[in-house]
Every structure is written in structure tokens, then in C-alpha cells.
């Protein structure tokens, strides 16, 4: 069945029927090409998604104070809730088992000056551990450390773009800047994956910020970094316990939904992962729909090919082709075309995705579109196998045609 002669015969037939060969090959190539592109784009979409949501650490809870909306234990409604340093200590003490680090956040906008240059920036009073919650990457110098916090030093860590704004091409490290009327020394420059906004921020010790503001002990937000081992359920439990703890401590009605907000990155992450999963599923379904359309396309072509060749098949049978000869000729031809053009389409598709690279990430949210070789080959093989099966039905019908019927003069 697979002798060299058989192949030569198939090859000759294909070469001499160029249009037919081209059309069926083209259909198959196009099918695979669309599949690969679609699937790759889908992956690109998911990549964008991942990039978007994985820039910060995921083992983090953010606590924001709000305003009460219900009276409770003699307190009136509409009371402003505030966090203070003692809250940080309480979390560290009471939730020691679960928590790696607790860090406050105090955000203030400030006019920042260096020599002739000045600009408004967000300054953020933080604890040294905040570096890990934000995944802040130091370009040069260092981040705030424990000593900075304890001694309330006037050290600042500035974003990459702040340095460019104020220092141009010069080096900011060791320079002094005026930060809302106080002089700070730049000890580090950071970059951040999160985009331009985050690189126009300035970190200072929160203790220094409190000292500047009349030695207050208020903090704006609390960032709790918990132990990653807690996992999703542990994080959800911790969130509930913290909520209960603070509602109790600050005399908030347990039913009150406006007095305290907790943002749980893990929970969001899970939702996002679920969403990404759904996206992936849709993309897969659509892509395999393309493959099925391709298979239907092939079987249509095969039906047409067999019809067109009825007379030829009749001639071949009259001069001695067995049904098996007929089936194997037609099948091998179709499998040969599908294989060659399928893999051609696959290579073109992969090449296309490669060449697209990150060109689409700005406008279309598609980052690094990509298909694994395994999936690509699998889809191609599926198309070939089912294309073969689809070709078998008309081939068998062709083999059953009686030569006299096929040869009857019209």
C-alpha cells in the first residue's frame, strides 16, 4: 500500500490536478492557520490579564477605614473610623501566627522641589516591609529600612520618573529634595511594573510623616502581608477574623458595611483566574470549532473530488483497479494533501504569532500571543485524522461505483 510506486502515482495525480490540489490544500492550511492564530491570540489575552493582575504580591490584605452607617453601643451613625499605630501592633500581636508583616500607608500629595525643578507628587509614608507587598524593584540605592522607621529619618525613595523629572540625566542618590517644606535625602530610586503613575511616587518612613504632622499616630490604611501557606481559604478566614476584630475594637455594628473595607488580593486573584479560565475555555471552543469547520470543508472537497473523478474511477476499475486500490488512492491523496498543507499552515501560523510578538499589546491587550507546539501539532493531527475519516466515506462510495455506471456515455 505504501510502496514508492503508490506514492509516485499519487504525486503525479496531485501535480497534474494543480487547481484541485491547491484548493483543498489551501482550505486545510487556512483552517489550521486560523486555529493557531485564534488560539495564540487567546493566550495573548490571558497573558495580558495575568500581567495586569500579578504585578503586586498576592498574599496581601488592604484595610481601609470608612464611616459608620449604623448606630452601635451608644455611638451614633456617620462616625469616621480611623486607624492608628496601636492597630498595627494589635494585628502583629493577635494574628502573629498568620501574618508576616503589617505596614501602614499614609498618602499625601506634596510639592517637591530640586533646584529649579518642581512638581507635585504623591508621597507615601510606609513601613520598610511595604517593598514586598508592592514588589518594588530598586534600580539604585536602597529601600527604607527598619532604622529609617525607628529613627524617623528624612530619607526618601523616589520613582524612576521622579528622578527623570527633577534630575534629568543626573543622579539623584545622595541629593536633597524639598518635600512639602521638609528636606529629604534621596536614598534610592525604584521602578515598578505597574506603569507611569506608580513610578511618580515617593516613599518616606511613615513615622517621619507622622512626626511632621504634629506627631500624630493616625494611619490611613493598613496593609497586611500574610503567610503564603494560608492559601485561598486561609486568606478568606483571616479576612473575616480581622473584620470581626476591628469591628469589635472600634465599636462598629457587625452588620455595618461602610465602616471598614478590606480588599483581599487573593480573592480577586481567584476571580481573575476563574475569568481567565473561562476566557481560555471560550477561545479553545472557538478554535476547535474552526478545526471542525476545517474537517467539514475537507469532507465537502472529498465528496466533490470523488464526483468529479467518477469517470476516471470507472476507467481505472475497468482496467483492473480493485476497490481497495481505489480507496487507498483517494485516501492517501487526501491524507497527503492534508498533512503537507496542515503542517504548512501550522508553521505559517506559528511564524505569524512569533512575528506579532508584542506589537499588539498596546492597542489590543494581546501580550506575547503564543501556542505551544504540542497543541499546534495535536490540532493538526486531529485535522489530518478526521480529514482522513471524512475522506473515507466518499472514497468507499467511489470504490463501489460500478464501472458501467461510471463509464456510461452522457
Amino acid at each position, binding site marked *: 500500500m505504501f510502496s514508492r510506486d503508490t506514492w509516485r502515482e499519487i504525486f503525479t495525480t496531485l501535480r*497534474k490536478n494543480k487547481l484541485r490540489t491547491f484548493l483543498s490544500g489551501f482550505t486545510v492550511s487556512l483552517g489550521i492557520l486560523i486555529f493557531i492564530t485564534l488560539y495564540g491570540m487567546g493566550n495573548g489575552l490571558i497573558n495580558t490579564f495575568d500581567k495586569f493582575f500579578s504585578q503586586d504580591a498576592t498574599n496581601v490584605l488592604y484595610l481601609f477605614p470608612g464611616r459608620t452607617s449604623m448606630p452601635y453601643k451608644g455611638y451614633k451613625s456617620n462616625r469616621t473610623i480611623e486607624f492608628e499605630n496601636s492597630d498595627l501592633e494589635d494585628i502583629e500581636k493577635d494574628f502573629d501566627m498568620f501574618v508576616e508583616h503589617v505596614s501602614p500607608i499614609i498618602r499625601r500629595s506634596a510639592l517637591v522641589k530640586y533646584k529649579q525643578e518642581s512638581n507635585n507628587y504623591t508621597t507615601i509614608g510606609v513601613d520598610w516591609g511595604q517593598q514586598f507587598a508592592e514588589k518594588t524593584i530598586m534600580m539604585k540605592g536602597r529601600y527604607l529600612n527598619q532604622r529609617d522607621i525607628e529613627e524617623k529619618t528624612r530619607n526618601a525613595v523616589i520613582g524612576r520618573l521622579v528622578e527623570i523629572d527633577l534630575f534629568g540625566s543626573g543622579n539623584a542618590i545622595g541629593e536633597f529634595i524639598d518635600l512639602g517644606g521638609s528636606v529629604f535625602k534621596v536614598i534610592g530610586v525604584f521602578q515598578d511594573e505597574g506603569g507611569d503613575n506608580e513610578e511618580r511616587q515617593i516613599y518616606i518612613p511613615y513615622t517621619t510623616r507622622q512626626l511632621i504632622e504634629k506627631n500624630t499616630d493616625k494611619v490611613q490604611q493598613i496593609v497586611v502581608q500574610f503567610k503564603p501557606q494560608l492559601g485561598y481559604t486561609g486568606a478568606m478566614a483571616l479576612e473575616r477574623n480581622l473584620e470581626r476584630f476591628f469591628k469589635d475594637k472600634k465599636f462598629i455594628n457587625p452588620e455595618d458595611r461602610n465602616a471598614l473595607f478590606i480588599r483581599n488580593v487573593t480573592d480577586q486573584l481567584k476571580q481573575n483566574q476563574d475569568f481567565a479560565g473561562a476566557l481560555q475555555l471560550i477561545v479553545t471552543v472557538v478554535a476547535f470549532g474552526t478545526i471542525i469547520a476545517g474537517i467539514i470543508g475537507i469532507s465537502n472537497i472529498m465528496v466533490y473530488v470523488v464526483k468529479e473523478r467518477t469517470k476516471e474511477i470507472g476507467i481505472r476499475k475497468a482496467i483492473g483497479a480493485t476497490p481497495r486500490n481505489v480507496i487507498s488512492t483517494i485516501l492517501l491523496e487526501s491524507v497527503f494533501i492534508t498533512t503537507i498543507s496542515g503542517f504548512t499552515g501550522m508553521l505559517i501560523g506559528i511564524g505569524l504569532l512569533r512575528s506579532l510578538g508584542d506589537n499588539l499589546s498596546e492597542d489590543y491587550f494581546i501580550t506575547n500571543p503564543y501556542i505551544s507546539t504540542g497543541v499546534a501539532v495535536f490540532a493538526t493531527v486531529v485535522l489530518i485524522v478526521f480529514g482522513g475519516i471524512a475522506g473515507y466515506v466518499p472514497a468507499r462510495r467511489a470504490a463501489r461505483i460500478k464501472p458501467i455506471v461510471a*463509464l456510461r456515455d452522457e
Partner: protein
Amino acid sequence: MIEIKDLHKSYKMGSNSLHVLKGINFKAEEGELVAIMGSSGSGKSTLLNILGMLDEADSGQYILDGVRIENLSETKAARYRNKFLGFVFQSFNLINYKTAMENVALPLYYQKVSRKEREAKALKYLDQVGLKEWAHHLPSELSGGQKQRVAIARAMAAEPKVLLADEPTGALDSTTSYEVMDLIQQINDRGNTILVVTHEEDIAHMCKRIIHLRDGVIVEDKKIKQVRASEYVQ
């Protein structure tokens, strides 16, 4: 070489059936050249197709070269056709995308003859029909007479015991017809058994025996003195 006894064949068309062959008895020895005559629709092609195993009889016996032909599987029929029989049709039935040589070589492909040998044999038979120079031409580049000669070369390439020709000159003018008949006579001279379906008297008289079909039976069967086609071919 060929023997049929009480052969019947009818075609079913919806509710009524058309009884075409109503008990044919016939015998042809090796080396005979038989013309089968009869008006259009008298069942000449039907008979030839049954003899060629392209169709099956409803009842009756068929013995080809001592082998009883009955209840053949498709595969077996294909093998017999390939080994015992050569066909020539009125409309040539060449494969249009294959060259003359490839067409002639095709029966040998199904005999699993090696490629070299196939091509050598194909050229030999094309030479015999005087078309060696046309070996690499497509059928569309050949005249009707040339096409029929290629078809004859193809039928002979497998070296069959019996050559069956259904109105081989039906689509040709008389000069070309005589050339084709000349070829058929030459093949017969080498000892091949040949059956020619025709409704033309002059063609029939170039055979050695004439059978007349009418109303599904043989009404006349006579040996004749053969007219040599070469007399009419310059």
C-alpha cells in the same frame, strides 16, 4: 475460450423491468474475431459488459478460459478483468491528465509491474499502434483515431486473453475506422480472441464471424470471409 449458456439479463426501472437478454447461447474459440451486430437498443453493449465482468447476468452460465464466472467479489472481478480482458470503448475513456504512455501503462500498474518495465511495455505497444512519437502527449492533443489507438494499446498492454471492443469505430470517420480495424485484425492475426460490437456492415465484414442480436436472442450466427482493412488503408 468464451462460452455462455442461456444468459438472461433484465434492467429494473421503477416498477417495470426491461428484459434485454432472453437466453443467449454462444461460444467463441481462441483466435476468433467476432462481430456482434444488432439495432440500437438490442442489447449488444449489455452482452459485452457481462462478458467483460463489468456487469452481472441474472441467470445463465459464463465460462471464460475454462473458469466459471459467477458470484465474483468486486476485488476478484477486478483481478480477472485485469488479467483476462482488454476493453476498447466508443468514447475511448482515456484518463485526460495522463500522457499516452501513462494511460497505456496503467493496467500494468495494477498488476504491480515495476515502473521501468511498465514504461518499456507501454512504449512497445504504442509502437505497435504507430504512436511511439506521441508517447508524451496528453489525450487532448491527439485526434480521435489516435486516441482509439492509444486505447487499443492500453487494452493490449496487459496481454489479455480476450479483447472486447464496444463500437470502437463509432466515433470515427470511415478512413480512421479502417485504420483501427486494420490494427484489430493485426492483433487478431497474432492469435488474440476479439469481440467487436458494431452496427456498421462494413466493419462487421472485417471480422471472421457475425452474430445478429434481435429481441434479446441471437437470430443469426455465420462465419464470413474476412475483408482485410489494409486494402482500404494507404
